[in-house]
């Protein structure tokens, strides 16, 4: 049943006399017609994974296949079934949107007529009509992204790779792009999507693989992952730094998991079962103990929390 498969991929780079293990035994399994979200911080190995699976780079070792076709041995066959939208929009800035898409169609060997038709269709589908005949250079980031995504869809590929498709977009463009991706998915396309945002994986993916330092460290549906790290969190910001230790132990008594301390050294947070009730209780307890608060609230877990919980280190440490 698994459609995209990667086994034990290893890829090392040597940069500035330092060996970087971009992939350190990464394995993946994406069933046909589903969306797998690859969630991880900067430098986790998301792009490297996508590059291996899309034939751009060869791993040092490991195997990969799509629909039973070996990615390393038969790259030409793979290229005829995939669509790719990389982390940085891969469009020719000096060509118009239409010229870019028509060129991609020709290079998939669709023939002149079909390539033109398809470019026109995609321009309409992605709402780029007014930009179709201007060089891409003048486009906004969001429009460039859409042209790039349209380029990935030229042959209606059964497999789609999207590397951080919404990074750098404003919230409105992000929502627009999510809708496009959802429509595609409902059409049965198998998608591997990378992102740094839990919310994005949440919105789009059937199953999420959390990766860190070149390995998958947790996998499951977004609900499963959230259960694992606790659903809602309560977060309290303390006025006095001296109170932090005491505050941590008080909060730990009410929480479902480890209490973490934010970068400012005075914000403590923890996963809880019933956020509203816990928050009320915490406010009461802290008042009784006369620990003053700057701020108090509940929030959904962020990627930082997932990492704190799963690896015991913060995302910032990973990217450093």
């Amino acid at each position, binding site marked *: 049943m698994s459609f995209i498969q990667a086994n034990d991929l290893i890829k090392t780079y040597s940069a500035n006399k330092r060996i970087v293990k971009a992939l350190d035994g990464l394995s993946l399994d994406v069933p046909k017609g589903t969306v797998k979200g690859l969630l991880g911080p900067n430098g986790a190995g998301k792009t490297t994974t996508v*590059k291996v699976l*899309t*034939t*751009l*780079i060869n791993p040092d070792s490991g195997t990969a296949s799509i629909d039973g076709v070996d990615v390393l041995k038969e790259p*030409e066959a793979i*290229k*005829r*079934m*995939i669509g*790719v939208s*990389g*982390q*940085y*929009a*891969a*469009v*020719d*800035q*000096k*060509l118009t949107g239409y*010229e870019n898409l028509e*060129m*991609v169609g*020709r*290079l*998939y*060997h*669709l*023939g002149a007529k*079909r390539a033109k038709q*398809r470019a026109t269709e995609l321009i309409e589908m992605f709402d780029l009509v007014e930009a179709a005949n201007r*060089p891409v250079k003048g486009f906004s980031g969001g429009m460039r992204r859409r042209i*790039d995504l349209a*380029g990935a869809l*030229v*042959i*209606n*590929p*059964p497999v789609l790779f999207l590397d951080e498709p919404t990074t750098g977009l404003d919230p409105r463009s992000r929502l627009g792009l999510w809708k496009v991706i959802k429509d595609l998915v409902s*059409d*049965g*396309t198998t998608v591997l999507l990378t992102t740094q945002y839990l919310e994005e994986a949440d919105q789009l993916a059937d199953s999420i693989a959390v990766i860190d330092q070149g390995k998958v460290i947790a996998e499951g549906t977004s609900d499963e992952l959230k259960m694992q790290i606790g659903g809602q969190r309560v977060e309290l910001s303390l006025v006095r730094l001296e109170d932090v230790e005491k505050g941590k132990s008080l909060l730990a008594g009410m929480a479902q998991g480890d209490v973490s301390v934010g970068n400012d050294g005075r914000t403590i947070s923890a996963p809880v079962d019933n956020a509203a009730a816990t928050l009320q209780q915490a406010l009461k307890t802290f008042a009784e103990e006369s620990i003053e608060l700057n701020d108090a609230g509940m929030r959904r877990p962020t990627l930082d929390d997932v990492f704190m919980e799963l690896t015991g280190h913060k995302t910032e440490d990973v990217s450093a």
Partner: protein
Amino acid sequence: MSSVLKPTIESTIAKTVSDGWIATRRNIYKLRRDPEIFVFSLIQPIMFVLLFNYVFAGAIQVEGGDYTQFLMAGIFAQTIVLSSTYSGSAMAQDLKDGIIDRFRTLPMSSAAVLIGRTFGDLVINASSLIVMMITGFVIGWRINSSIPEAALGILLLLFFSYAFSWVMALIGMSVRSPEIINNVSFLVLFPLTFLSNAFVPSETLPGPLRVFAEWNPVSALIQSTRELFGNVPAGIPAGDSWLQQNPLTTVFAALVLMLVVFIPLSIRKFKSISSR
């Protein structure tokens, strides 16, 4: 699910031809929108022809000839050698822009992007050459040989520029920075074209420079085109080196060597590059 669109071309040769054409067409489209290239490939050559002709004509005596006749082959060669820089910087720019990653995930021929680059640049070089020849005619340059010889001279220049584009394309993919390519190539190619018989007879150069100029392959290219256009002044025969005595053989050997070595190397390099 809407079904996947199938290719209409299967044979490798047909794909290479079609993809090579699409990649060339891409570069030709871009020429229309790129005023920089227009200045670089059309205005600058005209300026060079006029400047060198009027500045040096009074000062440099060519025995048994006229400086304008002597000069033109030198300007032709210098211009096409320098403009090959663009093949390198454009490959580096494509890598930087990420478009190479798009190409590399498409089922296209691995030679196509390089074919497109080199043929696109051949169009630029041919245009430069035409513009320079017309400017030359206006200021009194004449072809004093037969039509076949002159045609061979033009072909030789164009083939040389084409082969050199493959060399620069490989350098562009390896260095990956358009700015570095532009600066380094200015530092290397500019002296290379000057330390030749392009603007002054090589025998007038001081000792070591004269030796360099005589063994400089660019001098051989200039000497052969000068001969083929019938522009060799009576008083200035070819230099003493073997290269100068056999300029055509030298140029052919250089051409074949560049093509045989750099086409496979460039294609191999292309198959493994990826931006960022």
